[in-house]
Structure formats: structure tokens, C-alpha cells
């Protein structure tokens, strides 16, 4: 409710602009969540492109510019484009994206032709279809009683938002199933097919209702971007939906103020803001963002190099008990060179897991605190080698590279499972003993 503080006075046109944008965004975010989850984003694309021909054809047939007739025409065209592309997909074996592309470009061409042919008698402005008229919605207002003039678009969108919210609330369970297990939903038959059709119909209705306010193309942004952003931030459906609605509302309010400051088109700014929030989520989102993923990957790489290094020093101890040290250069070469071995050496020295073996500090050896972990790594390595050789019949010469990777990812459960399958007293395929995992230092 903090957001209410940003609302201008009801007499101000800004109030209605923000209210309308918020309503559009709520409807779009609610349905867009399922569009994105069901990988139907392109359907939203096709529907929004069919608005123009729908309006043109509605005008051609009815000869009237009544907004309701226009909306009905657009909704019908939207459904025709979806149904037609599905038919082409099914009966002509054309991939979904190509089928949609063929259908909506053709419909658009028909729409432009009709509008051009009737251009003299009507100001069906292609510009308006592109931009929407959010900034001037208060020019076309109706009195709902009480003396307050409410923009017609706002009234329409309130009704649409209520219908959408009701639909999502009532059919929550079914929509969820359609999104996460479409195969099961299909096998359950008629009821789900009906709800699916209703859903697509509602997407068409929302797109059509919204295009007057924000333009046909930007509807796509409102449908897809908030849900895609939410998808990067959560794995729960209800949280995803709340986030999508939240982003929608925030961008509607923010869009108005940025547009005022920069003296430009509100709808464009709203789409731009949604894009900025999405970009931030792509980069910084905790689990699915790019940077955290990079950081996690880098962390894993460093851990692997540390563990490799400890295992190397352990083997050096085994082979040359009298001189168990290796030079920094040797270690670095064995571990693939570059920055990672240097960082690993620094970390392990600081932790006391390894220690210098000569006064100059060039030769390094395993220290007492690092011994248990080093032994465990070698244990896992040889355990996996033994398993590959004895249970899966991999030749001894081939087991090493696989074990070198696997040893970093064998946890206690895996280890227990392998230990149950093979005896660990017998040496590994190269004839080396598998060291005791839990030995005292």
C-alpha cells in the first residue's frame, strides 16, 4: 500500500493513466505467467499482430467505429490466427513458429489493405495501433455516477482485469496442470481442452483491451517480460505470479513518472522499464542469474583444484616417503597451469593444510591438518576407479580421467553405495591400495 503514496489526485489525468496502466499490467501478468511457463510466448506475439486486421475487418463489415465492435473484431481475428496456425501446424506439419509467422503476417497484410482502402472514410490510424493512447485516455471518459468522469478504456480494463483474476482463481488447479503436465492434462480430455481454449480466448481479450491503451506491440512486453523476470527469481508458481504482478504494477507507476520527466511516450517507457528489471534479474538473480552462476562455477573450479592439489601431494607421500614434496612449478603444471593453482596454493598454505618443505618455500608438502582430506580424495578417486573397472568392465588404462573428475562429486551417500558394491581391501586397478577413509591422522 506504500505504492498508493505515488498516486496523483483523482482529478489529475495522471491518476487515470497510472490506474489504467496498472490494470493492464495486472491482467497481462496473470495470463502471461502461464504463457511463459507453457512456452506459448509466440502465441501472444501472433495475437497482438492480429489486432489491426481484426479492427479493419470489423469496420469493413459493420461500417461503425463503435469500440465494442472493434474489440469484438480484433478478438475474433486473434482467435482465428491462433486456430489457423494450429491447424496448419497439425495438418501440414509446419513448425509452430513458422505457422504463426505465415498466419499473422498474412492477416496483417489483409488488415493494412482494408485500412488503406477505407482510409478516406475513417481515421483508423496505424500509428495508434503501434503506440496506444495512454497519455490521452481522459479525453474519452464516461460518467459512472457520482460525478466523476472515468475514462472508457479504464472501465473496460477494470472489467477485463476482474474477469482474468476470477478465471485464474477459479481454474488455478487446472491451469497449473496445463502448465506443468500438459500430457496428463491432454489425456484428461474435454474439460482441459475447454479451459485451454478459454485461456487463449482471454489472452486475446486482454490483448485487444490493452492495445488501445499501450499499443499492440507493447502488450507483448506486458505479457511476457514480468513473468520471465519472475521465472528467474523463484521456482514457485504463486510467488512467480505475485512477482509478475508486482513488476507490472511497479513499472506502470515508474513508467508514468519517467515519461513525465523525459517528456515521452508512457507505454514505451513501461516496456523499457520492464526490460531493465528483466536485465537486472538476468544478471543478478540469486540462483538463476548469470553472475551468481558464474561465481558458483568459479567456486567449484577452485575447490576442484585445491582437492586435486591435496591428492597430488598425498600420492607424492606414498611414492617417496623420504621426500614427499613437490615444487610449485611441478604442482602448477600438473594442475593445468594458470591462475587457479597459484590461488589454491595460497589458500591451502594459509589454512595450514600444506606447508613449505624448504627454507625458500619453493617445495611444498602435505601438512598434518591437510592429511585427512587428501586421503579422502585419493580414497574416492581409487574407489571410483575400482568400481569402474570391476563393476562396469572399464579397462584399467581408461579409468583415471573419469575418476579424476568424479572424485570431486562423490558424497557420503555415493561412497556408501559404492562401498556396499565392491570390497575396498583389494587394491585399485593400478595396484595401489585404497586408503582408509576415516583413518586417524
Amino acid at each position, binding site marked *: 500500500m506504500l505504492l498508493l503514496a505515488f498516486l496523483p489526485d483523482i482529478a489529475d489525468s495522471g491518476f487515470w493513466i497510472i490506474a489504467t496502466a496498472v490494470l493492464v499490467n495486472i491482467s497481462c501478468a496473470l495470463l502471461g505467467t502461464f504463457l511463459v511457463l507453457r512456452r506459448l510466448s509466440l502465441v501472444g506475439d501472433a495475437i497482438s499482430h492480429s489486432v489491426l486486421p481484426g479492427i479493419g475487418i470489423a469496420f469493413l463489415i459493420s461500417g461503425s467505429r463503435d469500440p465494442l465492435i472493434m474489440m469484438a473484431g480484433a478478438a475474433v481475428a486473434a482467435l482465428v490466427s491462433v486456430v489457423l496456425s494450429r491447424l496448419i501446424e497439425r495438418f501440414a506439419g509446419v513448425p509452430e513458429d513458422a505457422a504463426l509467422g505465415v498466419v499473422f503476417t498474412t492477416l496483417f497484410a489483409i488488415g493494412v*489493405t482494408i485500412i488503406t482502402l477505407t482510409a478516406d472514410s475513417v481515421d483508423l490510424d496505424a500509428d495508434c495501433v503501434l503506440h496506444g493512447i495512454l497519455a490521452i485516455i481522459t479525453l474519452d471518459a464516461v460518467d459512472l455516477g457520482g460525478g466523476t468522469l472515468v475514462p472508457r478504456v479504464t472501465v473496460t480494463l477494470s472489467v477485463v482485469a476482474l474477469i482474468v483474476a476470477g478465471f485464474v482463481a477459479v481454474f488455478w488447479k487446472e491451469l497449473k496442470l496445463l502448465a506443468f503436465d500438459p500430457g496428463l492434462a491432454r489425456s484428461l480430455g474435454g474439460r482441459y481442452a475447454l479451459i485451454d481454449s478459454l485461456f487463449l480466448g482471454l489472452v486475446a481479450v486482454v490483448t485487444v483491451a490493452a492495445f488501445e491503451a499501450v499499443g499492440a506491440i*507493447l502488450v507483448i512486453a506486458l505479457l511476457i517480460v514480468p513473468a520471465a523476470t519472475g*521465472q528467474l527469481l523463484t521456482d514457485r508458481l504463486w510467488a512467480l505470479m505475485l512477482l509478475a504482478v508486482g513488476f507490472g504494477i511497479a513499472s506502470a507507476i515508474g513508467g508514468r513518472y519517467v515519461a513525465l520527466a*523525459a517528456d515521452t*511516450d508512457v507505454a514505451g517507457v513501461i516496456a523499457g522499464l520492464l526490460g531493465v528489471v528483466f536485465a537486472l534479474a538476468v544478471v543478478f538473480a540469486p540462483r538463476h542469474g548469470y553472475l551468481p552462476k558464474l561465481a558458483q562455477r568459479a567456486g567449484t573450479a577452485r575447490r576442484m583444484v585445491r582437492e586435486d592439489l591435496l591428492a597430488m601431494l598425498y600420492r607424492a607421500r606414498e611414492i617417496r616417503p623420504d621426500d614427499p614434496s613437490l615444487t610449485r612449478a611441478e604442482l602448477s603444471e600438473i594442475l593445468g597451469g594458470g591462475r587457479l593453482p597459484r590461488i589454491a596454493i595460497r589458500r591451502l598454505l594459509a589454512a595450514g593444510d600444506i606447508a613449505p618443505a624448504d627454507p625458500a618455500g619453493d617445495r611444498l608438502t602435505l601438512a598434518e591438518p591437510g592429511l585427512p582430506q587428501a586421503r579422502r580424495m585419493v580414497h574416492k578417486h581409487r574407489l571410483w576407479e575400482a568400481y569402474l573397472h570391476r563393476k562396469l568392465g572399464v579397462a584399467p588404462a581408461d579409468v583415471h580421467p573419469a575418476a579424476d573428475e568424479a572424485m570431486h562429486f562423490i558424497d557420503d551417500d555415493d561412497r556408501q553405495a559404492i562401498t556396499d558394491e565392491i570390497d575396498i581391501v583389494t587394491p585399485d586397478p593400478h595396484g595401489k591400495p585404497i586408503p582408509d577413509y576415516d583413518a586417524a591422522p
Partner: protein
Amino acid sequence: MPNNGAITFDAQPVLDGDDGGSARRRRRWWVLPGLLLGAQLALFAIGGAAGVDPEAEFVALTQALGLPFNDTVVALGAALLGLAGGVIGSFAVLRRRALVADAVAHAALPGICIAFLLIGQRDFIGFAIGAVGSGLAGVAIIAWLPRHTRIKVDAAIGIVLSVFFGIGIAISGAIQRSPDGGHAGIDAYLLGKTAAMIPGDVFAIAVVTLNVVLVVIVLYKEFRLIGFDAPFARSAGFPAGVIDFVMMATIVVTTVIGLAAVGVVLIAALLIIPGVSARFWTERLGRMLLLAALFGVVTGLGGALAAAALPDIPAGPAIVMVGAVIFALSALLAPRRGIVARFVDRLRRRATLFRRALLEAVRDAGGSREPIPATALESRFAVRSLGFRLGVWWARLRTELVRPAPNALQLTATGRAAALEYARARRLWHRLLSRTVDATRETRAVIDDVDRDVIDAVAALHPQARARLEQALRAAGDWPDDGPEAP
């Protein structure tokens, strides 16, 4: 293990270095395009130095031919655009990226607006550079998002399309409200003014088309690999990222050059429709590209000529509608992949299955030797239905069945052979399945269900396997046999 003091580890992974070999095998793919580009630049330089003006030459040529000038310009431009769009669009279609062209066309807007802000006036080259720049950024994002995040490719296309377009609208809004913004001409750029094409535009389109075709010829092998199996191309050591980028860049350039001619939505059509239509007619990529080029040229030419003949119809939409007609004809009439061909094929399949079942039923009812009443088949067919009568009619037409009396059926020699073949295939199939799977109640149901296609299934058996199964059936006394043929 002998140890002489040297450090050895659990195993020494010995990998034969074939890096040198693969480096030698790797094609220097950039050499040829570089040469071709250089040759073009040299031609331009020579032409410029010699004072040849291609635009003037073109005008002179048109006048010499006595063609209506404007219509010729538009038709030529549209045909060339269709050629380029058809060729490169085929790859977009094959890569399931058909709508990338649409996204790029929308994503070009902010680039155009920024170019306007920087230059301060309408400028074809400036607009084109801005549009290509933001188009490439959009394509790169579409390629990057699904690979590195959980965003799916369809959402990525939608996001790039709408967010870029929104930013463009915002910038253009600011431009139009600024004092000298009125003549930005951005809307014209977006919606396209096909009929207003000038020889300079056609020349630019011709250069782009030539280069698109050259790129596709030079990188044919690479494009084919990426188009059909990008992961394989990557694993086989092709620089898949680079090739993909070149392919997408070609799409971007074609889209941008077409934007000015036919507008945002309609250029997408020129990239999608010829390729999708060509796909119906052939399974071979080379033929598909040639056909797509042809369809593109016919689309552009036909649309432009139609618009010239019918002055009320705008040229851009006319072009797309001609394309739609070509698509509809291809989708309906193409052999094998077309809707009619598929329908006929399905019908024939069903009819064949029905005929086989009918012959076998007549055989089971004893119709091999003597006429049986049709009512004897009542447990297996709705004998009064039209379908049944049609089936009987067809079998009679093929002389597999005769009707000695109005309500009686008997197999001919041909029919007996066909029925026998069917019965045997069925026994073979049952034998095969009951030996491979446990014949529980559920699997029996599956076996009976598969029954319908037994002839095809058995035909695919290896002859030896078939012979072994037959032997087993004979040994079990379960092999259908009509005995010696009746004289």
C-alpha cells in the same frame, strides 16, 4: 610397481594430439567472403573513378526498354528482396527461428531513433547502420538468453521484440515532441512505403541480395550443418557460434534493408513464407533454397505487378498476399507433404487395412471355397454400413472378391492369396511379439492393436528371422495354409 624416484601418478592419460590435423582440416571460412567483399569494394571504387552512376544507368536502361518507370523500380526491388529473403529465410525456418526476422524488424527501431538523435536528420545509411546495430544486439540476446539462463527461446524472442520496440517508441516519442522532431520519418520507415521505392533503394537491395546469395553459397556446408543439427556441429568442432552469428547477421541485414521497402511486419513475411512454402516440395536443402528463391522472386514480382494493376491496393500487403497464396497452394497441393497428399495417403492406408481385414474375415468364414452370406461377417463388421459396402466394392474392383449372388461373398484366387498372406503375417507377428514380450492381458491388447499394420511390420522383418518364426509356427501346427490350390 617399480619406482626409481620419478613421480608417477595413478595413470598417465595419453591423448594423441590431433590438434595439428584438425587445424589443417579446418576451413579458413573467412577467406572467400573477404575476397568477394574486397572485389565488390574494388568494383565500386573503379566504377566511381570511371564516373559510372549505377542509378543513372538503371534509369537509362528502363527508359530504353520503355517500361513504366516507377512500377519497374518497385517490381525489381521487391523481386530482389524476395530472392534474398527466401534464401536466408529458409535457414531461419529450418532453425525454428522463423520469428527472429519479426523480432529483428521490431528491434531495429531504437537503433534508427538513436541514429536520428546522433545525425539529426533522415539519412538512409545512418538509419541502416543504427538498425543493423540494434538488430544484431537483439539477435545476440535471443541466442544468449536460452543458452545461459532458464529463459526459453520463445520468451526470448518476445522479450527482445517488445522491449526493444518499447524503448524505440519511448525515444521516438521524445524526438517527436522535441522542436525539430516532426520530420523524423520514422513511422514511414517502420510501415514501409513500397510504392515510393527509388532506384537508389533498389541498388542497395541488389547489393545486399548479391551478398546474401554469396554468403549462402560460400558457407553452404556450414549453414546446412547448423540448420539441421547445431549441437552436432558444435561437437564436431565447427565454430558454431561464429557461423550462427554470420547466419543471424545475414538475416538482420536482409531484414533491415527490407524494412524501408515493405515495413516491419511484411518483411518478416518475405523471410518466412518462401522458405516454409519451399519446404513442402522437397527434402533436399539445395532444391529447397532454389525453390525459396524462386517463390521469393515470384512473390515480390507478382505483388508489385498486382499493386501496379490495382492502384487502390498498397504494394507491401499485396506482396505478402501473393506469398500467402503460394503458401496455401504449396500446403495443399505439394506431393507427399501437402495436406491433400497426406489426406489421400491416410485414406488409402485405412482403406487398405479395411480391405485386408475384410478378406481375412471372409476367409475365416469359409469363403475361400464357396460363397458365404455377408451376414456371416456381422460379428466383425457393420455389414449394412456404407463403409462396408465401399470396402466390398473396392475389393471386387481389385478382383479379390466376387459376389456370386446379391448377398453372398467369395474369394477369388487373388483374394485367397492376399487373405492367406495376411493371415500368415498375423501369425508371424503374434509369434514374434509373444516371444519378445510377456503375453499378459495388457500386452495382448497391445498386440491386437498393432495387428492393424501387420503386413508392413512383417515386411520389415529380416528374411532369416521370418523363416525361423515360420518354422516354429509350422512345428506348432499353427501355420495358415490353404492346401493345394483348387484347379
